[in-house]
Structure formats: structure tokens, C-alpha cells
């Protein structure tokens, strides 16, 4: 038994050296063969890294929305209700918000939110088309915001509709590269606002302009005052539950309270929607699941094409080296040794290709990293190595078997 294992290891080792030698002897051909695997592995790894990166960002972004926050809105994020029905719903007003707030007992915080697209300016620099968020001082309680400098605007400022602003980290970076935003005066729509707070990076780039990093927060009354047109738009009521465990109860209560506020009779259906991150998550998972499968399928296909290439070249290689196989057999190589030699050769080629592919994938991920946070997982490295070895063995199997079962006399006679 021990002898057999030793013999096996010996054969593996010798097979590996023979393989290395013939790879070195046929550099150009080995390189071309490798190319297929290099492309296959680097695309599979990059793709899975990119998907992982998108996923991480999304998870992070979505968790900045909070698992325990409900969004009471005229609009539904996802629904099968016809669009015209949603459109014909009544808008949610500030009075309804006040009533809702006084009736609901479960929420930790309730805040009205309205938005406007505006341009912010500071001296000669400006950021266009940002999300201007209008709410009240309770808004910050519905988020997990952390601050680089300053604070959120307070109750007095929000009740008095003062011209104060809290800015996201991206906007701060663009307007105040030196990081001295606090107490500076920015202009939005020609009106001056004093900056009372700067958010630290919330890091949810995937949300795009919904990302708090790209937003400016001012009191809701101030929005209504200066952007009068927006007064006619509906508001969203952000409701934060006391804990994630209480989200469901809070939602049920919110539904009842809002029906009461709207004066709906028992037969009427809701004329509002209560959105939550969970729905976003489900939808996201569906979309990303499809992207993932499609992406891995396409890149997997390139790996498969690479494998076919290897099989092809290994067949050519076996044919070309028929005489060599005959010589090896004549001096006592067993079938197993020939089989092992060619399997080892294709596995080694694939492994080398896989490693080169990995290096390329790492370089690619550094490039991708400039657009979104990615990192190559250790598991991806091992999977890639495993896949390239497996590809090598599978692609080499048929050619190696052909070589192993050659008749020595015929092989020697081959010209």
C-alpha cells in the first residue's frame, strides 16, 4: 500500500518533469494553448469579482437605507398595480404627516421627505443636478448618518425654515477639496445656505444620486419656501421602527393609521404604499441572479472554448509525438505512465494559464476598483486554480487516452 502511494507520487513527479520539459521544448505551442485558459480564467475571475463587488456595494448601500425603515409613499417601488391607478392616488400632504405622527405610537421616528433636483454652488465651483432633500430634524433619526463635521440641522432651524444645509461627503469633496466646508455659505437656486454639518462617507455608490453622499439636506419648510413649485408634489413619510424585529408590527400599525388619516372605509383599498428595503432586496436578488448566471455562463463559455482548444492541441501533440510515444513504450513505459504524462502536461499548461489569468484578473480588479470597490476573494483564487486544473485534466483525458493505448510497434513505425 505504502509502496503503491510512493510509486504514485514518483510517477506524478516524473510526469510533471516530463511535462515541464515538453512544455519548454514547445514554447510557442504551449503559449498558444495557454492563451485560451488565460482568457477563460481571467474573465471568469474578473466577472465573479465584479459581481461580488456590485453585490457588496449594493448590500452596503441598501443597508444604509436601513432594514428597519418604512417608506410611506403615494408611489409603490414594486407593484402590479397599474400605473394610472398609482398616478391617480392623492398626494400625501404635510397635514396628513402631522396627523399620522400624532396617531402612530410604535415608530422610533417619523419624518416627512420631499426632494428637488438642484445645482449647488460655492464660489466658482458647482455640482449640478443633485438631490436636495427636505425634511425635519427627525429625519436624521430615520437614518444611520455619521458626521465628519458639525451636526444635522435642529428642531428650531427646521421649524423656522432656516437656510441651513447638511451636505454629503461627495459634495463636500467637490466643493471644498480642502475639507473646510463647515460654516461656509453655499448657493442653491440663488439663495444662500450656511453649512451646519458634513456627512462622513456613507459608501453606497450603487444608489447613484440617491446616495446620501451626493445629497444636500435642508429643512422641508425651506424647500417649500424657495422652490414653490415643489409644494404641490407629494411627500414621503419615512418611518423607522424601534428595532428590526418590530418592523412588521410597525408596518401594520402604519397602514391602519394612514387609512384612518385618509378616512378610507373598510371596502376601499389602500391609496398609498408602504415600501421597504426588503422589496428592493428581493427585486435586486432577482436581477443580479440573472446577471450572475448570464455572466458566469458567458465567461464559462470562454473557458469551455479554451478547454476545447487545449484538447485540440493535445490531440495534435499526441499525433506529432507518436514516435516518441513508441520509443517510450519500447523502453518500458506502461500505459498508465503515458496517460499520466499527457494528463500532467495538459494540467500543467492549464495551471500555468490559470495562474497567468489570475494575475490578469487581479490587475483588472485594480482597474475596476477605481469605479467600485472590489476585492479578489481568496476563495476565488482557489476556485480558479481548481477549475484550471480540472479543465486541464478533462481536456487532456481523451488525447492522453489515445496516446496510452497506442500499439508500440505501430507507433514506432509512424513517420
Amino acid at each position, binding site marked *: 500500500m505504502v509502496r503503491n502511494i510512493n*510509486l504514485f507520487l514518483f510517477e506524478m513527479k*516524473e510526469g510533471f518533469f516530463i511535462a515541464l520539459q*515538453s512544455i519548454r521544448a514547445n514554447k510557442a505551442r504551449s503559449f498558444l494553448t495557454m492563451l485560451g485558459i488565460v482568457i477563460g480564467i481571467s474573465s471568469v475571475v474578473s466577472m465573479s469579482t465584479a459581481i461580488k463587488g456590485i453585490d457588496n456595494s449594493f448590500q452596503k448601500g441598501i443597508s444604509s437605507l436601513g432594514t428597519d425603515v418604512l417608506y410611506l409613499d403615494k408611489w409603490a417601488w414594486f407593484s402590479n398595480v397599474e400605473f394610472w391607478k398609482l398616478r391617480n392616488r392623492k398626494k400625501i400632504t404635510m397635514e396628513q404627516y402631522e396627523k399620522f405622527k400624532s396617531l402612530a405610537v410604535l415608530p422610533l421616528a417619523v419624518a416627512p421627505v420631499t426632494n428637488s433636483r438642484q445645482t449647488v454652488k460655492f464660489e466658482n465651483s458647482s455640482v449640478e443636478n443633485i438631490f436636495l432633500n427636505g425634511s425635519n430634524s427627525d429625519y436624521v433619526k430615520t437614518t444611520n448618518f455619521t458626521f465628519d463635521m458639525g451636526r444635522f440641522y435642529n428642531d428650531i432651524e427646521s421649524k423656522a425654515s432656516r437656510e441651513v444645509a447638511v451636505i454629503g461627503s461627495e459634495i463636500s469633496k467637490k466643493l471644498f477639496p480642502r475639507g473646510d466646508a463647515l460654516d461656509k455659505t453655499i448657493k442653491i437656486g440663488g439663495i444662500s445656505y450656511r453649512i451646519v454639518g458634513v456627512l462622513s462617507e456613507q459608501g453606497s455608490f450603487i444608489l447613484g444620486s440617491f446616495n446620501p453622499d451626493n445629497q444636500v439636506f435642508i429643512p422641508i419648510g425651506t424647500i417649500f419656501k424657495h422652490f414653490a413649485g415643489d409644494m404641490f408634489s407629494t411627500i414621503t413619510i419615512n418611518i423607522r421602527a424601534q428595532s428590526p424585529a418590530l418592523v412588521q408590527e410597525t408596518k401594520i400599525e402604519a397602514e391602519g393609521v394612514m387609512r384612518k388619516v385618509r378616512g378610507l372605509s373598510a371596502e376601499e383599498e389602500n391609496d398609498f404604499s408602504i415600501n421597504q428595503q426588503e422589496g428592493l432586496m428581493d427585486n435586486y436578488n432577482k436581477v443580479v441572479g440573472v446577471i450572475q448566471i448570464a455572466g458566469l455562463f458567458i465567461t464559462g463559455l470562454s473557458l469551455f472554448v479554451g478547454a476545447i482548444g487545449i484538447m485540440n492541441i493535445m490531440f495534435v501533440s499526441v499525433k506529432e509525438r507518436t514516435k516518441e510515444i513508441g*520509443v*517510450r*513504450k*519500447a*523502453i*518500458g513505459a*506502461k500505459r498508465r505512465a503515458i496517460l499520466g504524462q499527457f494528463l500532467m502536461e495538459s494540467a500543467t499548461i492549464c495551471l500555468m494559464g490559470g495562474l497567468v489569468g489570475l494575475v490578469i484578473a487581479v490587475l483588472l480588479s485594480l482597474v475596476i476598483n477605481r469605479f467600485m470597490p472590489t476585492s479578489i476573494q481568496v476563495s476565488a483564487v482557489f476556485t480558479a486554480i481548481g477549475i484550471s486544473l480540472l479543465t486541464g485534466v478533462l481536456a487532456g483525458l481523451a488525447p492522453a487516452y489515445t496516446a496510452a493505448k497506442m500499439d508500440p510497434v505501430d507507433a514506432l513505425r509512424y513517420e
Partner: protein
Amino acid sequence: MTENIINIEHIAKVYTIGDVKVHALSDVSLRIDKNEYVAIMGPSGSGKSTLMNMLGCLDTPSSGVYDFKARNVSLMTDNDLAAIRNKEIGFVFQTFNLLSRSDALHNVELPLIYAGIGSSERKERAKQALISVGLEDRIHHKPNELSGGQRQRVAIARALVTNPAIILADEPTGNLDSKTGEEIMLLFHEIHKKGNTVILVTHEEYIAKHAARIVRLKDGLIEKDELVPNRYIPNITAAVSENQTD
């Protein structure tokens, strides 16, 4: 009584190509003992190579019995045959059949690899074998950096390195000029003198005269099996000095 190595009885080898049956060997019986020196002769197509392949366990007969060292080869598996070729038989071919991309040392090492012998012992033995054929200064040369005679010496070193029971050579001088051929024949002479069994195929009477016994084939049959009355013993000193001026 001398030890018997090869004993074949009523061996035939038939190739079927389409409807035509080619009898490469029709009915051959032959007995070769330890330390014999046999030359096999005959016209082209008479079955010499076929017989050699059979003796070398590269091929199995269509019918008849082949006993190698009292073991029935006809019943052996592929693996058993490979093991016999590896340990008991040393092959020398007309076209050398070296691995062109490997140096002399690696070529000679090859049979030892398949015998499962570790690297350091292997290198030492391969080196010794190369020295014994006079190639100590060509150890790391590749076949294309060697002359025909030197290539054949590498091939002979490869055949000798496992200390086989017999050396089989199919026209070993066929691709060499007569002087180089003579040097190779001197090597075979020495190998035989050390107690080895040597069987070689040749077209040349003067080459065959080096052997002690000549088996003549014709149309797949043994036509004549005779001892050589006036055997040619190569002049060692002359050949060696020639070798040195090489």
C-alpha cells in the same frame, strides 16, 4: 547446461489488410540461450523486424508459443510486457530513436524513470552507461549535436543502462558508414564478452560475421540456422585508437 532465455515454437504473425492476409512470419521455432551472439539475416520483407519485435515483447504472435525466461509471453498483459521490455530487454534501432529534445543523459535515464528509480541513482547509472560507450564528454549534448555514430552509442547506453538479459538491435549499423559501423560492432562485441546475450539484424555479411550464429529468414520461415565457422573478432586496440582520432 546453459540457461535458456528465448524459446519460441511455431510462431506465426499474420497481418490482415482488407481481404489480403500477409504472413510476416509463417512458422518459426527458435531457441536462444544466455550469452549467445546471434545475427538474423534475410532479404527485405522476410520478417526480420517482425521477429525482432516479437522477441522484444513489443508485439505478440498471432499463434504459437513464446517463452521468455520460461514465462509464457503470449499470455501476458500489456503492463507485464512493458515491465519485461523495461527490465529484461535493451532495444537498439536503426534510426536511433532518441528523444530529440532531451540531452544524452536524459535519454539514457529514461528507462530508469519507468523502472521507478530515484533521480540521483538514475543520473549516476546513466552517466556510467554513457562512459562505458565512450561518451563521457558528450553527456549534455542533444541528439542533433551528435554524429550518427555517437547517437547510436547513446542508444546503446540507453539499452544497457537497466542491465537487461538481452540486447536486441535491428540493423544498428544500417544508417552508419562502415568505419563508424565497425566501432559500434566493437561495442557489441564488448557487451557480449561481458556475458550479455546479443541478437542483431543485419543485411551485411561482414557485420553478421561478428556473431557466433546466423539465422537466415526467407518468406517468414527459417531457411538456415548455422554457427559461424570463421567468426570475425574485432581488433580492439585498432578500433579504440581509431575512436580516439575520431
